């Protein structure tokens, strides 16, 4: 039982880590809570679903590898483009007005509500499924069952986490992103255009959210409201790991996933959200810098 719960926690955690990583990449450059991140996650899943069902209607009942590739690629790229659009048309004008953080927060809530309901208007409120073929029996490891799809989710998300980590640490663009995160003015002085870096962050962060949404849609069903919970888990994970810290976001995701699933060992599954938010409140009040104590904005000044 406990092995199964930990395994479930790791799988859920890998998705949380992806969302938290995307959220953190964006947070580092713009320094406000981008709530609309959750709806980008939903949009990625729905885009893939649309392409998937469009391609499926033309052929027989099974999609080729190329078809899958196209559907997933469009989902991820679409999510990235959506992120860029949100920044260009809403956050960019607000930045020029030097709006307060709370204004950004409410505007991003507005984007979230608008887009989520737009998706609901187009696709309906009902649950949709991307069927990946016949359901197979899972594999047995360490007294726990894991399905093929779950292995795929774990593998892909861990791969994405490593690639992103290397990208930010090793490439020139990653270095520029770190520079803007540390000090946008100093970065500007040495010839980095902060606006370009912000756009890049939105593109990468949103693409990650889209990827997370697509991965989860293989495992469970998709519905218009799925982004809300996912977003909150992503935010909680980033705060637990230390807001703005990239390894922290990854760790926080896994930590939250495992904590949530171990929590329902003794109490009912319905309390999962309650556990997650209790963790958030405890961290916010007692350790706002996360487990390793990242310096918050206020302390930096």
């Amino acid at each position, binding site marked *: 039982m406990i092995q199964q719960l930990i395994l479930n926690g790791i799988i859920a955690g890998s998705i949380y880590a992806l969302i938290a990583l995307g959220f953190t990449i964006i947070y580092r450059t713009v320094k406000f*809570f981008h709530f609309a991140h959750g709806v980008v996650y939903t949009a990625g899943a729905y885009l893939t679903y649309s392409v998937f069902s469009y391609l499926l209607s033309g052929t027989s009942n099974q999609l080729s590898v190329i078809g899958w590739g196209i559907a997933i690629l469009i989902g991820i790229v679409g999510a990235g483009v959506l992120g860029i659009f949100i920044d260009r048309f809403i956050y960019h004008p607000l930045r020029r007005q030097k709006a307060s953080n709370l204004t950004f927060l409410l505007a991003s809530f507005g984007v979230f*509500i608008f887009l989520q309901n737009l998706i609901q208007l187009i696709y309906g409120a009902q649950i949709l499924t991307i069927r990946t073929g016949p359901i197979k029996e899972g594999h047995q490891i360490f007294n726990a069952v894991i399905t093929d799809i779950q292995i795929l989710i774990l593998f892909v998300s861990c791969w994405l986490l490593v690639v992103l980590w290397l990208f930010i640490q090793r490439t020139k663009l990653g270095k520029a992103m770190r520079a803007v995160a540390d000090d946008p003015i100093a970065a500007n002085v040495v010839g980095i255009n902060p606006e370009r870096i912000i756009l890049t962050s939105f593109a990468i962060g949103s693409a990650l959210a889209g990827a997370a949404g697509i991965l989860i849609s293989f495992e469970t069903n998709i519905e218009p409201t799925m982004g809300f919970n996912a977003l909150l888990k992503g935010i909680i994970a980033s705060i637990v790991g230390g807001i703005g810290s990239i390894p922290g976001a990854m760790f926080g995701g896994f930590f939250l996933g495992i904590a949530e699933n171990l929590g329902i060992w003794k109490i009912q599954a*319905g309390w999962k959200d*309650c556990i997650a938010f209790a963790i958030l409140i405890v961290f916010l009040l007692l350790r706002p810098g996360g487990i390793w104590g990242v310096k918050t904005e206020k302390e930096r000044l």
Partner: protein
Amino acid sequence: MEYLLHILVLTGIYIILTLSLNLIVGYTGLPALGHAAFSCIGAYTSSLLALNMGVTPWIGLVIGASVAAISGIVIGYPAVRLKGDYLALATFGLGVIVYSIVKNWVSLTRGPMGLPGIPGFSVFGFQLSEIWSYLILVALFVFLTYFTIRRIVNSPFGRILRGIREDEIATLAMGKDVDRYKILIFVIGAFFAGIAGSLYAHYITFIDPSSFTVMESITILLMVVFGGMGSLSGSFIGASILVIFPELLRFLGMPSSVAAPLRQMIYGLLLIILMLKRPQGILGRYKLR
């Protein structure tokens, strides 16, 4: 006609919620995103008292509002430690926790099935069943709330609240116990939200957790921001427009599967436009910090 009165009653309940949230967000400058939690606590307390112990709604309303006020100490506590977005997030989280408790504590609240058959108000043995009588009742409470909150914001106490919003450190330097005032304002706001929740429960006679989601809190905040931060007449305008305007969609003959998301889309769009063009709201003088 019945329908029109019903909308007016709902508007009144939202005005109470908006006024009380304006006290916290607009006057004291504390971004609180969990206001629906207070009305949830008020509604459930007085409904459960009425259903399980036969307590009359009048007493239930007072107890419900008091329990909500006590919960204001817990939900307002983060305001002492956190600022800005972090406070918004913490109150948001506490809102989700309250919602989650109400939804999952099935043995007490019947969870998602909700509580049906909540008795209505009665005056001298006469059961209030007509909608217009509820309109009078709600109008009375709106007046009471407005009057009390106006007294609060125009008193020396209200000046301290505005002091906290404008410059917390200066207020602290004046020898005011800022932390105590912050909690106190959450308690007062929660009390009125509890009244609104209790009125709603006894008016509709059915409540379930879905009426008190976090989206509801955001809607109330939108009403405050739309009408104007720190403006009482703004709260009246904000709540009235945002309750009545989406109802007009019904008259366009749309099926509810279209009208419901469309209504939310309008809210979302309004929030975006408001933030871009006029972050202080229609009648507000103060911007969000």
